[in-house]
């Protein structure tokens, strides 16, 4: 998400000051070592996801029953699995699935959560109380459990995972947006808009929203890390994309049974891929948070 693309017109007098601030933030971000390390790893996985099978010598689906459960070698850097498929190809191409599903799920949650949070914070009173109670009931369950419940109701697929994670994130993001809106709505520019006779929708989305974008962006990046975490877990449990698709969580679940026989490479590289992606997203999220909310 580009920082410069944010509409700043509605902020009126503070327009130019705010703009400078955002440029400065970007410079601070690029200077941060945490951000650079995280972004580099992330970039690697994005390239893997985009180019996919063009980067690898064998296709991720190509079976070779004469070379099953082979240890890592020059021909197969990460070894082969129970069907003789090249693990290196499966790990590289496996990045695509998670890098599509996780951002989409987070985006869905951010959009819904922002709308809900704006309403809760702006209307307060009864609307806020009722929604808050539902949010609390929702938060009484671990993400993975709600995920399982949702996937059971809708059937396992990537679309379901996106919808389920998006809906789970909605109240979490709404809570953050709500508290930011509660502060904003007391400011003069909101009172001015109300006196001008603007409608509630206009005030919420055109006046208040641009001024609460910073916490929303921090939420988005932080949630993205959680999304990768949750999606990997759900696919491992069998509630996401189905075989034979190359997917890290799914491959671990499939190959986990033969680990006791000593075929460690069939799960280790997938696990390491997950670890690097999660850490990278969190490094980026942390540095963005530090720049925006020092």
């Amino acid at each position, binding site marked *: 998400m580009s920082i410069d693309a944010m509409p700043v017109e509605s902020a009126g007098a503070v327009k130019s000051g705010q703009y400078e601030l955002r440029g400065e933030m970007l410079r601070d971000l690029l200077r941060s070592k945490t951000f650079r390390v995280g972004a580099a790893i992330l970039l690697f996985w994005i390239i893997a996801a985009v180019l996919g099978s063009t980067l690898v010598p064998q296709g991720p689906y190509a079976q070779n029953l004469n070379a099953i459960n082979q240890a890592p070698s020059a021909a197969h850097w990460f070894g082969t699995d129970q069907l003789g498929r090249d693990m290196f190809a499966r790990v590289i191409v496996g990045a695509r699935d998670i890098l599509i599903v996780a951002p989409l799920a987070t985006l869905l949650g951010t959009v819904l959560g922002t709308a809900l949070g704006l309403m809760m914070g702006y209307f307060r009173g009864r609307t806020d109380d009722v929604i808050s109670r539902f949010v609390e009931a929702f938060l009484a369950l671990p993400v*993975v459990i709600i995920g399982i419940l949702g996937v059971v109701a809708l059937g396992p697929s990537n679309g379901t995972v996106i919808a389920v994670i998006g809906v789970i994130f909605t109240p979490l993001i709404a809570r953050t947006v709500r508290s930011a809106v509660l502060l904003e709505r007391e400011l003069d520019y909101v009172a001015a808009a109300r006196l001008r006779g603007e409608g509630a929708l206009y005030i919420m989305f055109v006046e208040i929203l641009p001024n609460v974008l910073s916490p929303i962006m921090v939420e988005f990046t932080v949630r993205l890390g959680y999304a990768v975490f949750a999606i990997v877990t759900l696919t491992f449990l069998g509630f996401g994309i189905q075989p034979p698709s190359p997917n890290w969580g799914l491959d671990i679940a499939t190959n986990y049974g033969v*680990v*006791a026989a000593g075929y460690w490479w069939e799960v280790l590289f997938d696990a390491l891929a997950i670890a690097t992606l999660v850490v990278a997203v969190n490094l980026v999220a942390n540095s963005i948070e530090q720049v925006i909310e020092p």
Partner: protein
Amino acid sequence: MAIFILKRVGLALITLWILSVIVFFVGQVLPGDPGRAILGPLAAPSAVHALDQTLGTNRPVLTQYWSWISHFVRGDMGKSYSYQTAVAPLVIKALGNSLKLAAVAFVIVVPLGIFGGVWAALAAGKPRDRIISVVGLSSTVIPELVSGIVLILVFGIALNVLPISATAPPGASIPTQLDHLILPAIPLVLILFGYIEQMARAGTIEALNSDYARTAVLKGLPRRTLIRRHILRNSLLPTITVVATQVGYLIGGLVVVETLFRYQGIGSLIVTAANGKDFPMLEAGILVIGVAYMVATLVADILYSLLNPRIRYQAAE
């Protein structure tokens, strides 16, 4: 104090009721026809109809909800579709197993987290503090799936020092059971360590910077006594709340850890029920987790208010 507790219990009950509605509707109503879901798309309509009749899933939704929840609060959680036995004993046994695993994890992580946080805070800004913080942060973001796999590969297979199955042979002694639970507990410990450590660290730093700590230093109190008597007591307050809210994360982690280490706890029960479309067992498992979480939060709130009178008086007003 009584009013405060009553208020909290009342709120918890309302939340649980909403939760039961969500669980019931998502679990029972959204999948459409349970008979069809169990028998699959190829089954004859008459067979589906007969199964719906037996399960009682062709009654009006509100009637179904009422009969489910009114039995549930009396301890009757219905009958499992796949096991054809009462759900309650299965859920209770699984919950017991999970509590055992969770207890092992908590016993390790709470002292470790608090110690780590306080120790880091006492060297705030120095290398020791930064190392502990980085370790805490990274262990918190790594999924249990990844740490579990690595632990199994290293300690269970390469070094072969710990069993990779959490389930001890039947009738095993307590030390043997513990032996089986240590490896599965570590991923949970890693996830929780960061949160507890950060809270303890922040609480300690705040206490160290307070006026009373400075007064204590100026009146010549030895550092050891200062930490024990003034700092710890105040820094542990927020930590208690965090420990309780972590129960949710812990249960989420149990789902993966129990599946990975083949342990029959509440997490793997839910996964089995979900895969087998065993709706009564799934709903019972999830609601029980909700209850466990609410109880933990409630206990934390009450404990917190006992330790911090300011909260108690505010809430009573």
